[in-house]
C-alpha cells in the first residue's frame, strides 16, 4: 500500500479515534508485532485502539470502504500467530474494551466486553459464589474475546467444558461493520447455531464486541491428588483407569520429568523430582463426594503403581500444587533460549504410545522436549526447547513440531486442541482435512467475509480457486 493510502487511512480513523489511539510509528507498534508465538512477527500499517464499540464499528467501516485487511487482537497471548499483524492492514487491539457490563447472579450470567481478562470475570463474580469455568493457564492475561476466538480450554475443561460450552450470546460486528447479536439468554437460538461457528473462528468471521458468559457455582470443596510414577506408560494407563472408573475429575493433568524438574525449580510445589511423570487429579463437589472420590482416586493410583502420593491438605496447599502446573510453560522456558509449544489432541488411550514416539523424535532432532498437558482430555503440549537465533534450530524445531502433529492425526486425533491454527498450522491443515473439506471451510469464510479482509492468511487455507477473487493471492501468502 502506498504511503498516501496509509495517510488517508490514518486521517479517516482519527476522525473517530483519539490521535494517540491510532499508532503509526514503527517503534510504538513493536509491542504488537506478534503474539506469544514470537517466531512469527510483522508490523501492520497501523494499530487502532478503540475505546468503545461504536469506535470499533467505525474502524471496520473505514477498512471495509478502503478494502483494507483487519486483524483483531486481544491480549496477544495466543500461541499460533493468530494475532500477528498483516503488513498491509490494520491491527485492531481490543484491550481498551475492558468493562464488565453486567452481572446477573440469579440467572448466573455476566455480560463483558472482549478485552476483560479471563480471570477478572471469576474475580468479579466470586462474591456471588460463582465463577467462569474455562481457565487457560494464561488466564491472568488472556482476554475473553481471545478465548472466544480460539475456543480456549484450561485445566478444568475436562468437567466443565470449553469456551463453546460456557458462553450464551455474542455481540458481533461483521466485516462491513454491521451489528448483530447471536445466541440468546436461553440455552439455544433460532436458525443456525452461529455461536458454534463463531467460537474458535480465530477472528476470521467477525469481531466480537460483547460476550454473555455462563457462570458456575463455586464448588464447596476441591482437592488435588498428586501421584508420581516411575514410567510415562504407567501414568498414561492411570489416566485411562480414572476416566473409565466412573469419576469425571475437575482436572487431570500430566507432566513428564523435564517439566516436573523445571516447575519444581520455579514454584517449589513439592513435586517428586525423581518421578518419570506425575499426575495432578482434582476432584470437586460436596464435602462427602470429594472425600469419597479422593480416596477412590488415591486407591486407583496406588493400584496402578504410583511411586508417591500427595493429597492437598488445604486451599493453600492445593494452590501450590497447581502453581507448579500453571507456571510450567515459563518454567520450562528458563531451560533454553526459546520453547515451541505444540497442541495436538489424541485419544486418551494413545498417550503412552505418542509420548514414547515424541521421546524418540527428540533424540533424532537432538532437541529436548518437556511434556505438560491436559491428560484427561488427551490434549498434549510438548514444549520443544530450541534457540531461535540459530536458523538450523528453528528449522529443526518446526519440523519436529509438524511431525508430532501429523502423528496426532495418524492416531485419530487433531493438529490443535485449543491453541488454534493461526498462521502457524495453516500448512498442516491438509494433513487433517481433504481438499473438499478445506473448500467447504473456505466457502464458510466467503459467506461472512466475501473480500477476505478479516485476518487474512490465518486459520483456513485459501486454496488456488480463490485466485478468481480480486487482489487475493499476495494478501494471503505470508511465506
Amino acid at each position, binding site marked *: 500500500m502506498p504511503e498516501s493510502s496509509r495517510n488517508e487511512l490514518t486521517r479517516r480513523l482519527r476522525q473517530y479515534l483519539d490521535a494517540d489511539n491510532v499508532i503509526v510509528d514503527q517503534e510504538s507498534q513493536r509491542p504488537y508485532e506478534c503474539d506469544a508465538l514470537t517466531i512469527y512477527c510483522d508490523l501492520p500499517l497501523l494499530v487502532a485502539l478503540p475505546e468503545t464499540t461504536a469506535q470499533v464499528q467505525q474502524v471496520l467501516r473505514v477498512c471495509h470502504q478502503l478494502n483494507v485487511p483487519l486483524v483483531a487482537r486481544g491480549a496477544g497471548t495466543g500461541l499460533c500467530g493468530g494475532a500477528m499483524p498483516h503488513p498491509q492492514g490494520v491491527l485492531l487491539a481490543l484491550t481498551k474494551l475492558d468493562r464488565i457490563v453486567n452481572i446477573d447472579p440469579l440467572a448466573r450470567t455476566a455480560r463483558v466486553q472482549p478485552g476483560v481478562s479471563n480471570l477478572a470475570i471469576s474475580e468479579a463474580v466470586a462474591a456471588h459464589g460463582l465463577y467462569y469455568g474455562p481457565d487457560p493457564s494464561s488466564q491472568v492475561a488472556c482476554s475473553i474475546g481471545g478465548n472466544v476466538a480460539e475456543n480456549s480450554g484450561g485445566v478444568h475443561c475436562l468437567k466443565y467444558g470449553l469456551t463453546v460450552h460456557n458462553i450464551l450470546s455474542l455481540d458481533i460486528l461483521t466485516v462491513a461493520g454491521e451489528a448483530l447479536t447471536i445466541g440468546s439468554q436461553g440455552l439455544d437460538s*433460532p436458525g443456525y447455531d452461529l455461536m458454534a461457528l463463531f467460537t*474458535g473462528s480465530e477472528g476470521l468471521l467477525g469481531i466480537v464486541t460483547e460476550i454473555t458468559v455462563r457462570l458456575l457455582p463455586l464448588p464447596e470443596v476441591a482437592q488435588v491428588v498428586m501421584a508420581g510414577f516411575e514410567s510415562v506408560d504407567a501414568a498414561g494407563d492411570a489416566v485411562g483407569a480414572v476416566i473409565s472408573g466412573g469419576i469425571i475429575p475437575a482436572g487431570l493433568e500430566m507432566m513428564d520429568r523435564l517439566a516436573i524438574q523445571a516447575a519444581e525449580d520455579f514454584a517449589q510445589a513439592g513435586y517428586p523430582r525423581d518421578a518419570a511423570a506425575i499426575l495432578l487429579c482434582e476432584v470437586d463437589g460436596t464435602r462427602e463426594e470429594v472425600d469419597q472420590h479422593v480416596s477412590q482416586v488415591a486407591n486407583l493410583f496406588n493400584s496402578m503403581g504410583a511411586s508417591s502420593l500427595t493429597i492437598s491438605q488445604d486451599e493453600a496447599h492445593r494452590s501450590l500444587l497447581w502453581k507448579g502446573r500453571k507456571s510450567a510453560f515459563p518454567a520450562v522456558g528458563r531451560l533454553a533460549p526459546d520453547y515451541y509449544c505444540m497442541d495436538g489432541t489424541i485419544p*486418551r488411550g494413545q498417550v503412552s504410545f505418542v509420548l514414547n514416539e515424541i521421546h524418540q523424535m527428540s533424540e533424532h532432532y537432538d532437541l529436548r522436549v518437556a511434556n505438560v498437558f491436559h491428560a484427561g482430555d488427551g490434549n498434549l503440549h510438548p514444549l520443544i526447547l530450541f534457540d531461535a537465533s540459530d536458523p538450523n534450530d528453528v528449522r529443526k524445531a518446526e519440523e519436529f513440531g509438524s511431525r508430532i502433529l501429523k502423528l496426532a492425526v495418524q492416531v485419530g486425533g487433531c493438529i490443535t486442541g485449543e491453541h488454534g491454527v493461526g498462521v502457524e498450522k495453516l500448512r498442516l491443515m491438509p494433513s487433517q482435512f481433504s481438499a473438499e473439506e478445506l473448500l467447504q471451510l473456505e466457502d*464458510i469464510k466467503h459467506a461472512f467475509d466475501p473480500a477476505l479482509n478479516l485476518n487474512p492468511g490465518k486459520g*483456513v487455507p485459501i486454496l488456488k480457486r480463490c485466485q478468481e477473487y480480486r487482489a487475493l493471492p499476495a494478501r494471503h501468502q505470508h511465506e
Partner: protein
Amino acid sequence: MSEEPKPAGLDDSKAIVTSLMQAREEARPVYITAGGSKRHIAGRDCDSDTLDVSLHRGIVDYQPQELVITARAGTPLTELIAALQEHNQMLPFEPPLFGGKATLGGTLACNLSGPARPFRGSIRDAVLGVQLINGKCELLNFGGKVMKNVAGYDVSRLQAGALGTLGVISEISLKLLPQPEKTLSLRYEMTAGDAIECMNRRAGEPKPLSGAFWLNGDLTLRLSGAASAVESTAAQWGGDILDAADNTWENLRDMTLPYFANDEPLWRFSVNPAATLSTATDSSLIDWGGAQRWLRGEYPLQELQQAAASAGGHVTLFRGGDRAAEVRSPLSGTEQHLQQQLKRAFDPDGILNPGRLYSWL
C-alpha cells in the same frame, strides 16, 4: 482398546450419495427422514420427496475407556443407550426417545435434549465430530473423536438445530458420561413464580442438581451423582421424595406426560431461566430450570415472539398449528442474510430440506 466393536449395522452412505446426486441433477429437493418421529415437529412442513436414511445405521466405534461413541445417523437412540448401559455409561443430554423411533441424526438435526440439558449440556455440546454429505454430494468429515479440536470452523456443532438444511448427517461422534451412582427426586408445592426463583437459586448452589421442572403447582428437582452428595443435599433441601419407580422424568423427556396429550398447538419458549414470561398461564410447563417453557393454545406467532424476546429468548411452534407458515422467531435482516449465505455455502442448489427451518432458507 479393551472392547470389540459392536456389530456394524449397515453403511448405506454410498446409496445416499447416489440418490442425492440424482436429486441434484434433476433439481429435485429432498426431505431427509429416518425414524420419521419428527416429521411434523420442530420445523415447517416440507413437501419434497423423502430421502430415507434409516438403513444407514449401527454403532461404528465405541470406546468405553475414552467415553466416546461413533454411530451412523440412522441408529435408533434406544440401540445406543442399550450399548452404553452395558458399560454404565450414558448420553449426557437425555434425549427424547419418542417410543423408540428417535434416531441419532434426527436428534442432532433438531437439537433435542431432555431435562438434564441445563446441567449436563445439550446434544450440541456433546458432539465431537460429524460426517456429513453436503448439497454438492460430497462426503465430508469435521471434528473428530477426541475431546478437543479447534482446527477449522466447528461444522459439527453447526448441524445442531439446522434441521438437515446444511447436509445429510451421516455419522456422529459423541462425548459420554458415566452413569450417576444415585438419583433422587424431590417435590414441592409452589406457584410458578416461586418455582422459577427457587430453580435458579438451587442451580446456583454447588449441588448435584440434574433436573428442575414445574407443572400444575408442583416443582420437582432431581439430584444425580455420588450417593453421598445426593443424600446429603436431599437432607438439606427437604421436600417430598418421589417414589423410585416414578417415571415422571422419562415422560417429561419423551413428551408423554398427560400435559402433552393434546391436539392444541404446542409452543416452546427458550428464554432467560430467571425471566418472567408475560404469556405464562397456569397451564404452562416450565423445564430446564426455567430456560425452556411450554405453552399450549392458539396464539399469533408475533405476540409470543415479542414475549420471548422480552424474556431474552425465542419461541418455536413446536407441534401442531399452521406448519406452512413460519414456526420460529424471525431473525434480524443482517442475520437472515448471513444465514442465507451460510446455507448457500453448504447447499448451493437448495436441495436439502428447503423451507424446513424458515421459508426463506
